């Protein structure tokens, strides 16, 4: 039955086999980018293309978050002028993009990764250091 369970409930039924960590790609500085290299543990779980597309999309979104554009500049000026009280009511540009990223990851999980027994964890929960992919065991096939 394809019910939606909370992640914790699902753990009772599907066991986590492994976790893969996609590390950061520092080749272009401290910008938040993740390595697009396809980890070997996922070789028989998901297409390489799919995976790389996901990581690239994430990278693009993080680049957009950290972009020094007009929005961030205006935001900074406004914050200065209001003695940073504007942060109490307004969401920063980065936070907005992070919300977008969270939604994207959720959507990717629902559409692509969960059917394959994988789960992406939002890297913000790990301090933007790694993208954690949890690999779930195919219990039904082993019983």
């Amino acid at each position, binding site marked *: 039955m394809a019910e939606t369970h909370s992640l914790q409930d*699902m753990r009772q039924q599907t066991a986590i086999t*492994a*976790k893969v960590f996609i590390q950061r790609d520092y080749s272009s500085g401290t910008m938040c980018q993740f390595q697009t290299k396809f980890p070997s543990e996922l070789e028989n779980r998901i297409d390489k293309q799919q995976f790389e597309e996901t990581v690239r999309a994430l990278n693009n979104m993080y680049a957009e978050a950290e972009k020094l554009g007009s929005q961030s500049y205006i935001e900074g000026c406004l914050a200065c002028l209001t003695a940073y009280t504007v942060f109490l009511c307004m969401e920063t540009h*980065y936070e907005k993009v992070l919300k977008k990223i969270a939604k994207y990851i959720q959507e990717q999980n629902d559409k692509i990764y969960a059917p394959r027994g994988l789960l992406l964890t939002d890297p913000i929960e790990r301090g933007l250091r790694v993208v954690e992919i949890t690999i779930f065991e195919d219990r039904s096939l082993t019983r």
Partner: protein
Amino acid sequence: MPGSSSKSGGRGPSSSPLPHAVVPSSRPLRPSRYVPVSAAAFFLVGSTTLFFCFTCPWLSERFSVAVPIYNGIIFLFVLANFCMATFMDPGIFPRAEEDEDKEDDFRAPLYKTVEIRGIQVRMKWCSTCRFYRPPRCSHCSVCDNCVEDFDHHCPWVNNCIGRRNYRYFFLFLLSLTAHIMAVFGFGLLFILYHRQNIDRLHAIVTLAVMCVAGLFFIPVAGLTGFHIVLVARGRTTNEQVTGKFRGGVNPFTSGCWKNVSHVLCSSQAPRYLGRKKCAQSVSLQPPFLRPQLTEAQLAAKILDNGIQGDLHRSKSSLEMMESQSCDAEPPPPPKPELRYPGITRGNTEECSLLNKAPPTPTMYKYRPTYSPGKNHTALTHAYANQLSRGESVGSARDSSSSTSSLLQASQQPGFRSQPSLDRRETSSERVGGGGGGERREVGREGGGGGGGIPGYSLGGRSYPSFSDPTVLSGVASRSSSSTHTSAGTVHISEATTASASFKSLANQTPPPHHPSRNGSLSYDSLLAGGDEFDKGVGVSSAAPDVSGGRPCTPAAGGGYSSPFLSSQQREAEMQSQSSQSPHHHHRSSHHHHPFLHHSSSSTSSSPPPPPERERLLGEPHLPVAPAGQTSSAPPPSHHHHHHHHHHHSHHHHHHSSSSSSTSRPPRFAAPHAAPHHAYPYRTRSTDTPLGSSSTTHPPRSPHPPPLGKSLSYSSAAAAEMQYRLVRKASASAGANAAGVGGGGGGGGGMGGGGIQVPKDELMQMKSLSRINGGQPFSSTSTSSCSAPSSPSHPVNASAPPRVACPSPALMRSPAHKPQGSGVKKVTGVGGTTYEISV
């Protein structure tokens, strides 16, 4: 207060179920920390208030109302930035979850090199936070957190200055300079116009305020100028005072304009701690889609009765290993997950993910050890492969993971067939029924405390200080898995302390119920572990070998400080290999033997040093796996019973020798070797020093770790040697680094670093900031700047995509270089020096 939460947030994972939860800091309240910030706030607010009350009214009348307005705006700006700099989270990284560092072998190098814009930058392993520090990240000793883009720890705001609040700190300095100048200037104007009646109260107060302003102006302006230069250059205070880019190129700069705009105009960086976790509800319903789904595979899985499925899985994992070998570099050992793709580690993950992340104490990390009971056949294949490839570390890791997974598997009643039943019977016989059941329940707590296998935790190889056999045997047997786990963890941590240079030492995660971070914890866990630990000791000692580096990881849970001790111990042990090994094995309690025996026999395929176990167990009746048996198929343990007797005497130092050679064929440890008999267990290992180191690695481990142990030990030995080199370099460089830090601070007329007492001279602020900034990471910078690990590590760390790769290098390096061989210092880019052993 955000500030206080930020200070304690980094420690959240240690005692809360959610890694990002902010929990009250366990640090004792230190009022001295608040003296500078209180003084700064007092002077700032007090002086400005006096200025507004006494000087401004006349000025506004005499000149213009714009004067107080201007001053008011600037003062507001100063206050806002001061508050933001004080209370804002500087960019604290949450502690890494336990599962994260499993990916890196416990013997992974202390440093990992990445290339940033063509320049090699070293990332150091943070033992407290359990990850490799991202570039520009540093661990603040005052706040005990890793901070992103760490600049310094400022005592005047009592907060670290990092990525998130550097802008506010910089603006605070700018605005404070402007404010001081304004106050001083307008005060001077007032005095000039009141020269005649200077004895009036207003004039006196204005004079006082001017004095304060003038006094603070020089250090503040100096610091402001310093930071303007830093911003223009794209450097942090940390990098400046440690001289990281003195001789080289700064890879983090993008030009003056871009640097300034990045500091001032970039969007506010997000907070990592204290984020509300949105619970993802995802439907995970097997069967799962596979990219190349083969019906045959599915059919096989559905039809198997457990054993075949496991074999199939192991085979497929082996196939994967084969495919991995197609990579350019030597095939890295398969990851534990890969090795047993189907094997469930659900309990572990569940425990680790749902429960709180284990406390950060670096001393304890339980690493799942090899589980002899389950799928030893599969393991044998895997380990044999690994051994043949000469990959110790990776295999160790894999074996440990597979071990844990095996343990998990065996825990599921009925999930596996024969082997687990045997094991369970054995354990119940020996251990006592109650414990067995509970042990089975054990999930991956504490880093996979060996599943239900009692004492599986690498505790067997714990350090002498912890593995006192009397303590172990004396402990009341508690079947709680957690205790077992913790006990194992303790031992593991002890064992791993020896490999100082490896992050596994710092990597250790004590079982969830171990909040403390110091050595005493091990004693508690020892007491708690009881029988489990005892039993597990034997088994775990067998297990570690199988998993190579893996088992050692938990064993190596020793904290960052303990490596020093352990390395010394290991050195000594290496030298007195034979004499010491019996002692170590003495510690194992006798009742380990029966269990060990079974486990070892089951894991006979792996090359655990049976002699060790024999020696330790000293129970002749225990079935003994034939020593020197390299076949991967483990015969039933009881069949080899008689064989062990013969091999008994020869296997005494098996573990030592086995550990050293990576290519050593799997050995079956004779579990019942008398602990106090020194058996000339020299085995195939050719690498005596490594073997000895490995032997000593678990000084007290009652049983030679199976299979993986030899590998892990040799890696441990290699790591040990490297670490010693690093330490020597650090020691020598320490003086230099200290000098650098001191020199930087000295420029500001500095007092002692870290002195919290505010001094009149604001120059102190500058120097203190620098020193404080420098000091927390002086030790790290010292080691990072001047004592990098052997080049094989950085090279290997950066080149191969997988973290496992450094292990082969690690393995090779000790073999190639003798202990204490010559070391050549090479200055790399960015002022970092590398030690190349010649």
